[in-house]
C-alpha cells in the first residue's frame, strides 16, 4: 500500500468566515438599546435587572411622600458596559417615568415615540454625512418592553393607543411583570383576550413572520407567539430554600423561583430576548423600522426639494409646505428634531 499521491485540495476553507466574523465582532462589541414603557409600580426596573442579572437601573417610582408627582413622561436612559466571555455589549436601558401615571394620560406617549424616532433620525443623519464614520454609533431602540397591568381583563384603552403607535416604530414585546397575583387559569384567559384584541386592532408584534424563515425558525417563532404576553416574575433577591440558593420572592404561602418554568415565563422571555432572537432584534430594527423611517424621510425631502425647485422656477414665493416637514433637514448639517407623532 503506497501513500496516496493525490493533492487535489477540494477543501477551499471559506467556511472559516464565521470564525473570522466572530473575531471581528469580539473586537468591536455591539450596542443594545431597550426601552421600558409602563406605569410606575409595574415592576419594570426589577424585571430588567433580573433579565441582565445585574442592578442596572433604580426604580423611578415615588417612594417618599415628599416626592412630587411627575406631570409628564420623562425619558431616562442609563448606559452600561457589560461583558460575558469576551463579548462586550454597550447596553442602554431607557426608562420612561411618569408614563401613564396621571389622572389624565392623554398624550403621555408623545415623548416616548419622539425619543424612538429621534434615534432613527440621528442615525440617518450620520449615515447621510458625506464623511461618515466607519462604524455609525447605533442608539436606535432595538426592543420595547411594554408592561401590561395584571388583573385587567385585557388591553386598556391607553394600551391600545400606545401599542398602535409603538409597534410602528420599534419591536414591541408585551409583558406582565408582576404576574404573581394571577393564577394559571387567570393568566391563560388574560393571554387569550390580549391576543384576540391585538389581532383585532392589527397590532403587529415582534417576531414578524417572513417568507424567508426556515422551518425551525417558524416553529420557534410560533411557540414564542403562543407565550405572548410573557407572564413573568422578576427578583433581584437571592433567598434560601431547603439549603439551595434561588432568585425569587418569599410569600407567606410559598416561594416563587423566577427560573422555575411552572412559576413564570421568565426563562422563556430571557432566552427569547438574549439567547435566540438577540441578533434578530438588532437586525429587524435596522431592516424594517429604520428602513421605513428612512424611506419616508427621504421621500419627504425629495418632495420638498421638488416644491422648492418649482417655486424657484416660477419665480414666486417659496411654497408653504403641504405636509409635515421632514425630520432630517435637507442640508443634513444640523439635526433639528421635530415632534412628528
Amino acid at each position, binding site marked *: 500500500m503506497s501513500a496516496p499521491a493525490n493533492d487535489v485540495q477540494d477543501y477551499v476553507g471559506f467556511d472559516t468566515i464565521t470564525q473570522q466574523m466572530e473575531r471581528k465582532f469580539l473586537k468591536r462589541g455591539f450596542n443594545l438599546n431597550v426601552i421600558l414603557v409602563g406605569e410606575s409600580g409595574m415592576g419594570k426596573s426589577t424585571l430588567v435587572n433580573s433579565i441582565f442579572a445585574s442592578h442596572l437601573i433604580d426604580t423611578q417610582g415615588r417612594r417618599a*411622600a415628599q416626592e412630587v408627582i411627575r406631570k409628564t413622561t420623562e425619558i431616562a436612559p442609563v448606559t452600561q458596559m457589560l461583558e460575558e466571555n469576551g463579548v462586550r455589549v454597550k447596553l442602554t436601558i431607557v426608562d420612561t417615568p411618569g408614563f401613564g401615571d396621571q389622572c*389624565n394620560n392623554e398624550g403621555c406617549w408623545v415623548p416616548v415615540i419622539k425619543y424612538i424616532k429621534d434615534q432613527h433620525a440621528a442615525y440617518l443623519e450620520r449615515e447621510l454625512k458625506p464623511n461618515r464614520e466607519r462604524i455609525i454609533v447605533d442608539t436606535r431602540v432595538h426592543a420595547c418592553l411594554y408592561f401590561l397591568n395584571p388583573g385587567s381583563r385585557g388591553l386598556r384603552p391607553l394600551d391600545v393607543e400606545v401599542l398602535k403607535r409603538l409597534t410602528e416604530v420599534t419591536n414591541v414585546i408585551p409583558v406582565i411583570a*408582576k404576574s*404573581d397575583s394571577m*393564577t394559571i387559569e387567570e393568566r391563560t384567559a388574560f393571554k387569550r383576550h390580549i391576543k384576540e384584541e391585538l389581532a383585532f386592532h392589527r397590532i403587529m408584534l415582534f417576531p414578524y413572520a417572513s417568507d424567508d424563515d426556515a422551518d425551525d425558525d417558524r416553529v420557534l417563532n410560533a411557540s414564542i407567539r403562543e407565550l405572548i404576553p410573557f407572564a413573568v416574575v422578576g427578583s433581584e433577591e437571592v433567598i434560601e430554600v431547603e439549603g439551595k440558593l434561588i432568585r425569587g420572592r418569599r*410569600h407567606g404561602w410559598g416561594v416563587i423561583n423566577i427560573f422555575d418554568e411552572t412559576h413564570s415565563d421568565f426563562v422563556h422571555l430571557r432566552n427569547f430576548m438574549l439567547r435566540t432572537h438577540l441578533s434578530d432584534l438588532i437586525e429587524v430594527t435596522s431592516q424594517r423600522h429604520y428602513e421605513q423611517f428612512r424611506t419616508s424621510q427621504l421621500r419627504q425631502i425629495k418632495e420638498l426639494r421638488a416644491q422648492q425647485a418649482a417655486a424657484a422656477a416660477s419665480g414666486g414665493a417659496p411654497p408653504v409646505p403641504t405636509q409635515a416637514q421632514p425630520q432630517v433637514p435637507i442640508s443634513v448639517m444640523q439635526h433639528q428634531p421635530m415632534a412628528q407623532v
Partner: protein
Amino acid sequence: MKEGSGEDQNVAPSMYSHVSRPSSHRNKNARKGLPFNVMLVGESGLGRKTFLNTLCESTVITASEVTNAEQAHIAEPMQFKNYTVEMDEDGMKIILNIVDTPGFGDGIDNEQCFMQIQEHLELQFDSVLAEENRIKRNTKFNDSRIHALLYFISPTGHSLREIDIELMKRLGSRANIIPVIGRSDSLTPRELVLFKQRVMSDIVSHNISLFNFPDLNDEDEDAVEENSELRAMLPFAVVGCEEVINEDGRPVRVRNYPWGVVQVDNDEHSDFDRLRYVLLNSHISDLRDRTQNELYEIYRTEKLSGNTSVLANNTSQAVISAIGA
C-alpha cells in the same frame, strides 16, 4: 335568627348592642334589617367585584362576558351600579346596599370621575336634606347616604398615584373613606409592611381625611385598643376569591398558585376577615353615626349657610323649594 337573649358576652361596642336596649326593640331591628350603604371605588382589575362576592359569599356581580374583542378596549364612562344583599351577621339582619363604580380610572382621561362621584355622594345628602324639610315626611324614606367608601389601591409597592391622592382628598369630607390594597397577594409580607407605611405617610402628608377608627368613648379601654390596632392595619390588604374548596369538610376560600395556596380567611394571608368584621359587625354603627352626625352635618351647614361654592356645584331644586316651604 337568634332571638334577643340579652346575655351575650362578646358584644361589639355599638349603639345597637342588645345590652343597652330592651330585647323587644332589638327584635324589631333584627327583623327589619339595618340598612348599610357601601360604595366601592377603584380601577378595574383590583378586585372590587371579587371582594363584594367574597363579602356576601355569593355571586352578586357576575363577570361580564364581553366576547367580542372590538368592545373590550373601549373606555366605558364610569357608571354607578346598585346591588342589594340581605346579610345575617351574628343574628343581626343587615340590608347591604352596594354601589359599584365600574369604569373609574379606566379611561385615558379620568379627571371627570372625581366630580361624578362627589356629585353622587352629595345627591344622597340632598335627598335627606329635602326630606328633613318636608312638611309631611315619608316614614318609609330610603336613606341612601353612603356609610363607607372602600377605595382600592393598586399594589405598586411605591407611594400613592395621582388618581389615588386626588380621589381621597376630594371625597374625604363626604364619606368615610377606608383605603384597601387590592390584589395584595402580589406583595411579600415585608413589601406589604413597607407599602402600608408609605401609603399612610402619603395620606398624612396630603392631609387626606379617612375613617380613622375614632374613639367615641375614651373610657372603654377595649374599644380604644381595638381602634388603635385597626388604625395600624390601614390600609387593609385584601385578597378576594370566589373559589371554595372543601378542606376536612369545611369550606375554605383559596387562591391556588403553583407555589402555594392563599387562604382568604387566614389573617396572616390577608386582612379580609378583619375588614369584613369591621364593616358588618364591630364598626357598622360607628360608620353610620359618623356619616349622619359629622359628614352630613358639615354638608348641611355648608349648604344652608349659602356657601356659594357648594350651591354652585349642586343646585338641587328639591332642596331650595323644601327650604322655602
